[in-house]
């Protein structure tokens, strides 16, 4: 879906059997929505959908890299909240200050994760669980337990609320540029290769003389930075620094990454499929809302949870079928 002229679909499918499922499901869901509901493919729905989900794509991208090294980052949700508060304070200086400021704040927490994981050798699950608690506490401390207003006078909110041609929000454009950049990093640079190698065997990678620690630091800081970007989008698109936001977002991100076919044990991952995974999970909410509007069945909140779980179940079943088929074909 990116860089189309250089993209050979058949070859991609061969190499990425495990992510075929997500593309099929994505197309099927979009078709389903477009055929069943009025205005589903209208500009308004598309642009607001993309704007909201750009945050999830951003954190999923960072998560994808972390997971490829065999790690995990549970702190992203809290980091989004934390940076949204930081950025709200920066908003009077405009987006040109707030955007880099928010990303840096996120990277700083990412660096803390990296320190715990690399220097203190704390398992990523625990290290980032701790930062998840800490960042949430930090967000509440610096915000004084309040949501923090952004400056509506500066150009800050234009970023999160503006769009191009009524269809493409600025946020999604920035996130897509990030995605393409990360795709290039993963496929074409040595740090990207090292990231994937680590997931395939950390000791072996180290003994091959690859800069394991540097690559791990890179992924955690990257993930923090992606969460920081999501924090900027949150503050500027939703008008406030929100210390309580982001609860459970890490699980959405993990689900997107896995639905996109990345192995949780590390070593194999795909940037485009991760984007597709995030869009797919976002679509479930969107479609549920439209379905409620049809008035045939109204999904109460708890039925929505059940439906989402079942949906995840189906996608994973699909995915395991395809990855098996691909394994057979490859053998």
């Amino acid at each position, binding site marked *: 879906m990116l860089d189309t002229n250089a993209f050979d679909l058949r070859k991609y499918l061969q190499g990425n059997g495990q992510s075929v499922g997500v593309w099929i499901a994505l197309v099927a869901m979009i078709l389903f929505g477009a055929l069943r509901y009025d205005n589903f493919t209208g500009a308004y729905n598309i642009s607001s959908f993309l704007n909201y989900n750009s945050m999830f794509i951003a954190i999923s991208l960072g998560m994808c890299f972390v997971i490829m090294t065999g790690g995990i980052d549970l702190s992203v949700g809290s980091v989004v909240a934390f940076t949204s508060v930081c950025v709200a304070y920066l908003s009077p200086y405009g987006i040109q200050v707030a955007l880099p400021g928010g990303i840096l704040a996120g990277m700083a927490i990412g660096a803390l994760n990296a320190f715990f994981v690399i220097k203190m050798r704390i398992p990523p699950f625990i290290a980032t669980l701790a930062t998840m608690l800490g960042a949430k506490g930090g967000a509440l401390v610096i915000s004084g337990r309040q949501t923090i207003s952004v400056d509506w006078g500066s150009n800050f909110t234009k970023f999160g609320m503006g769009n191009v041609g009524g269809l493409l929000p600025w946020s999604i454009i920035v996130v897509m540029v990030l995605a393409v950049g990360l795709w290039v990093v993963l496929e074409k640079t040595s740090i990207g290769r090292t990231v994937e190698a680590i997931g395939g065997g950390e000791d072996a990678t180290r003994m091959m003389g690859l800069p394991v620690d540097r690559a791990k630091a890179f992924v955690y800081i990257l993930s923090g930075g992606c969460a920081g970007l999501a924090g900027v989008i949150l503050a500027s698109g939703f008008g406030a620094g929100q210390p309580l936001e982001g609860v459970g977002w890490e699980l959405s991100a993990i689900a997107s990454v896995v639905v996109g076919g990345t192995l949780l044990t590390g070593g194999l991952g795909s940037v485009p499929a991760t984007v597709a995974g995030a869009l797919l999970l976002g679509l479930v909410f969107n479609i549920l809302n439209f379905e409620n*509007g049809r008035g045939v069945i109204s999904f109460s909140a708890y039925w*929505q949870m059940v439906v989402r779980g079942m949906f995840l179940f189906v996608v994973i079943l699909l995915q395991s079928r395809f990855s098996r088929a691909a394994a057979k074909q490859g053998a």
Partner: protein
Amino acid sequence: EPPPLAQKDRYKVGFSQMESNNPWRIAETKSFHDTAEACNWDLIATDAAGSAAKQVADVDSMIAQGIDVLFLPPREEKPLIPAVMKAKAAGIPTFLVDRSVDPNVAKAGEDYVAFLGSDFIDQGRRVAEWTIENFKGDKGIIVELEGTTGSSPANDRKKGFDDRILQDDRFEIVASQTGDFARDLGRQVMETLLQAHPDVNIVYAHNDEMAIGAIQALELAGRKPGEDVLVVSIDGTRDALQAIIDGKMGVTVESSPFFGPLACEVMKRYAAGETIEPWVQVKDRIFTQENAADHIDEAY
């Protein structure tokens, strides 16, 4: 000027609930569903699962579906302002329900039609006033069980109560910790605080669920809620009224979730061209030993 509302037989009505993790919210959603039939609504109800950002996205998807009118209990004061603005831009009149948005940015009568609800600060203040009047001892040692840290009802109910009660020298708040609006946590926090502050004789909980949890903690520790410890709170749930009748609890200030009928009435007035007052005040009753038994059947 908020967008006008045409007179129609049936309206496509959006109700964007913020979360459904407590009985109060569930009762509120139910009230809207129950009203839909009587009021000729095609109701679209969404649930944001506690996320302000998702609530904005939910409102967006309802705007995309072309609703006529929006009822919105905003999860947070500031983050929901974009939702209000977008609805306005799409020509959809919005009524805020039970919580409001930041009045410095979005104003009733301009950006949205009106706010229907009560005042959390006032609820806290009324609990404090009742306590000042009815506390018999010389020295009131208070433990406060807060709602979800950082949420606006928790912040406001704390402010309203604290400001008022501390004007009276008899009272002192020795501990104030979050019980996350939940019964189980309210109990656990109370158990712990009771150990650290055995001389406590007043418990103020930000909602009834935590108050019930606190009563359980007191009983497990061999205390007598209602006799040696006065429990006061907000909401007016059935369990709380029962506790008042049983003499275990002093007071609960009502915070009714049944907004459906009010919403219907206000919307009809607006469609008829009436100017709606910016704040449609809900008259929160106060339940004590005197009237609890009369109202327990209407409680949820």
